[in-house]
């Protein structure tokens, strides 16, 4: 239950919106739910629906609409490489293959240690700095631009190290 671990934060989110339009809090609450375990579970949908007096269908249907919400578990970090046309022209497709090889997974899969899921996504609005990816995980969403296989490997090592130290 989100309420068990995040009661204060939930109260703060709800406070931001007038009582009459409290359904507006659905997005921040979905962010919170996803931050918790990396995806939005059926239980979380029901809990949020209960908090906002919505039907679970109203909450659940949003997850499919927004590409950054997930309804299935994945890695702790989701690496999302843009492979749209301008990025592809700057080598994003090749870059994606190399990163897959390095992580020993296919696009859409999760590494054996459960750390990384790799996805190819549509435009991230930074075509001039391709190849690039965004990482969704602990600490929200971060952009990593003008990437090479080397810099990506270093980034991945650093994350693994950081996690081991925690």
């Amino acid at each position: 239950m989100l309420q068990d671990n995040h009661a204060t934060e939930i109260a703060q989110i709800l406070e931001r919106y007038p009582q009459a339009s409290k359904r507006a809090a659905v997005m921040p609450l979905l962010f919170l739910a996803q931050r918790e375990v990396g995806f939005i579970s059926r239980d979380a949908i029901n809990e949020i629906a209960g908090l906002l007096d919505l039907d679970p269908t109203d909450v659940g249907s949003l997850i499919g609409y927004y590409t950054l919400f997930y309804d299935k578990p994945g890695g702790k970090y989701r690496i999302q490489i843009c492979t749209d046309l301008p990025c592809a022209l700057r080598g994003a497709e090749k870059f994606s293959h190399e990163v897959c090889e390095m992580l020993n997974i296919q696009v859409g899969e999760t590494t054996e240690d459960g750390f990384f899921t790799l996805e190819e996504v549509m435009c991230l609005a930074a075509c001039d700095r391709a190849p690039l990816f965004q990482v969704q995980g602990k600490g929200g969403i971060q952009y990593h631009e003008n990437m090479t296989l080397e810099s990506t490997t270093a980034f991945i090592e650093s994350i693994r190290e950081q996690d081991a130290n925690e």
Partner: protein
Amino acid sequence: MSSSQVKLMIDGNTLEAPRGMLLVDAALRAGIDVPVFCYHPKMEPVGMCRMCLVEIGRPSRDRQSGEFLLDENDQPIINFGPNLETACTTRIDEGWVVYINSERALEGQKQIVEFLLTSHPLDCPVCDKGGECPLQDLTMLHGPGISRFSFHDKMNSLKRVALGELIILDRERCIQCARCIRFQEEIVDDPVIEFSNRGRSLEIVTFSEPGFDSYFSGNTTDICPVGALTTSDFRFGSRPWELNAAASICPHCPVGCNIILNTRREVKMGGSEIVKRVLPRQNEMINEIWICDKGRFAYSYAMDSERLSQPMIRVGGELEETSWDNALKVAAEGLKQSGANLLGLAGGRASNEDLYNFKQLIQGLDGVSMLNDFMAGGKQNQQIGLGPGSNLGDLGVGDAIVVIASDLLEEAPIWWLRVKQAAERGAKLIVANARFTKLEKYSAHTVRYSFGDAPETVLGMLHYVTGDSSLNKYAKVDGQEESARIIKEATNAVLFMGSEGSDSESSKRLVQACGSLLAATEHIGKANNGLIPVWLKNNTQGAWDMGLTPPEKHLAEEFRDRTALYLMACDPFGDNPEMLQELPQDAFVIVQELFHTPSVDRADVVFPAQSFIERDGTLTSGERVVQLFYPAVSPHGESLPDWKILARIGALLGVAMESTSAAGVMNRIAEDIEDYGEIHYRELMNREDQWPPVGGKQIYFGGTAYENSQGIGIRLSSRAQRGEAYEPVWKESPKKPKGEGIRIVPIVKLYDQGTTVLPSLLLAQRIGQPELVIGQEDADRLLLQNGAQVEVQWNGTAHQFPVAIDNDIPEGIVLLPRNRQLGLEMPMACNLTPVKPTSKEKGE
């Protein structure tokens, strides 16, 4: 020409229509079709499907004066935009020139069909919608013979997604018009289906538990413009063109929704005609184009194999099948010998013709006839009910609606829907009940009283209206003063009165109080004003009108010392097995029934009656609209209509009754009963043009609801409307007995375990097991948790139920859904004993 009317030209025809009307509606009213998919006249336009693309030209105006600019021939200069526009979202204005069937517009419409067909499977030959499908029709009209899109890019999706057990979705066929989603959200406020994902992956989903479980879900299949949504009873059941259509009236509640019974000969049934599905029949005054799922899916009881098919007589203690002649002879002999103290008891399920003949027969035999019910209000409905010209759909700003002692959603779903919509149009809704009901969500004012205090609550409102100081002792609940003000100031006011928490005595006081309130605020004797009793049975009002009223005493007392009992369309011994002990052992019992009920087990003679699908007759709704239903299939076994059985017994006993036809009985009723003086079958068949057009050629516009060509019925006038004075009376409340412990209150659930619902396999999952609803305080005191079993004793009988805790229920009250075999017609004192020690107790 008034300024609210504008003149425009569509495809060369000049027409006038109200300013601001949607172009698609204006065109259709002028007889010009604009093809649509997502647009539906009962819902807000969204312009999602783009099917209704048309060319719109608007006159140029002078920037200074606002006058039309004229060309050299003194004609307004018309500007056509570069793009086609959607007729369903565009509101008309003066001087427009619109082309719907121009080459450019048709090209646009063609392209949209071609686009929709890129991913729509052309499985029309096996699709249930084939033959009544807007997409199929428009494809034939506009569709290209060959697609330019690659077959390999076609979306493939799931062909069978059970959104619930009643509604099945074919994702491939969905063209994403959102009619179903908007219906659930806008019209019935039960948003249990939604779109998820986007673009080509857009799909309808539900995250609700248990899925698409809504009292109105079946209507989405009517308005679905393709075969994406189908009902599980009709899925792969038949082709639409094989079906016959018989007009009927839904027999499940006092709303009287107009329906169509689609029938077909069925090999599985030995070639006999059976009902394949139930569809709404348009009546904008009653049910518009909607019906609830109970009406749509609970029809199968009429075709149940357990139905009685042969007359039976008791021989040596056992019931034996026999011929009609013999059974009638035995019945007549029995009545002759033991009819000295005869009681006739009829149910509110029977038609007016049955009830009239019943009254005639029992009266002719010097017996006493009664209605098997306890709720009062039939007389007041005759006096101050809604009169001709009334339509709940007309109520809006400035009007008031009061709903008291009723959970309308459970008792009469279509009334709930129309009251909700009236509230959304601006009518002030007052919901008065002892507990929360879903209707409160739309109310301007909520009055919450203690269980059993409904009459006093209304008398308190009356105090604020009249200033009568003798009533100020009743003015003690929040909201009475404000409610009184709203009712008093309203242009029109309609009051729905139910029976929740009432017994026969308090029901009488409640209806008197309600009548007095309506009279004091001058809301009687005119259209759209007056009383509507929310009866527990569909034709209870008809029974009152035919002269049958509930027993004055408790029914058990009425049974004592009777020498003979005649039961029609009711099952008192099934409702309450304890009643059997009250009837003398040697009393002669005749039963007319559909099923082998517990009352049949006590009968000496049993007559198999016909159900509503096999015969004709009339029903009188709670709004006092008399409506005609027609036979749809051939009779089950040797069953006969109730009125005919009665007439045949009457003939043997010298009681003259109409025996030729139901229409003939109605002619007798018209001669005999003042209010029905104008009612004849021919007039009941009258039709009226209604908006929106549905069915037939306009199937794409309003859906597959049937057009009403078989009769919209007649609304009876109230005595007040005919100028008769109404004398308001009310009684002081008796002192309440104190300290009687817990009271058990019967409530209504839409899917009850009644004779006409249980046989429906489709609804089996929805009916569920009855739960005892209990408040938190009582649950804590008895150490009960949700789901724990509890034994409840009342009236010397014991029953076990799981409990459901509801914070809203006050201490000292428990609720139980009405049900057969319980003997719980009215609230009564009860004892609760937990069945198993709860874990809490064990821990102590």
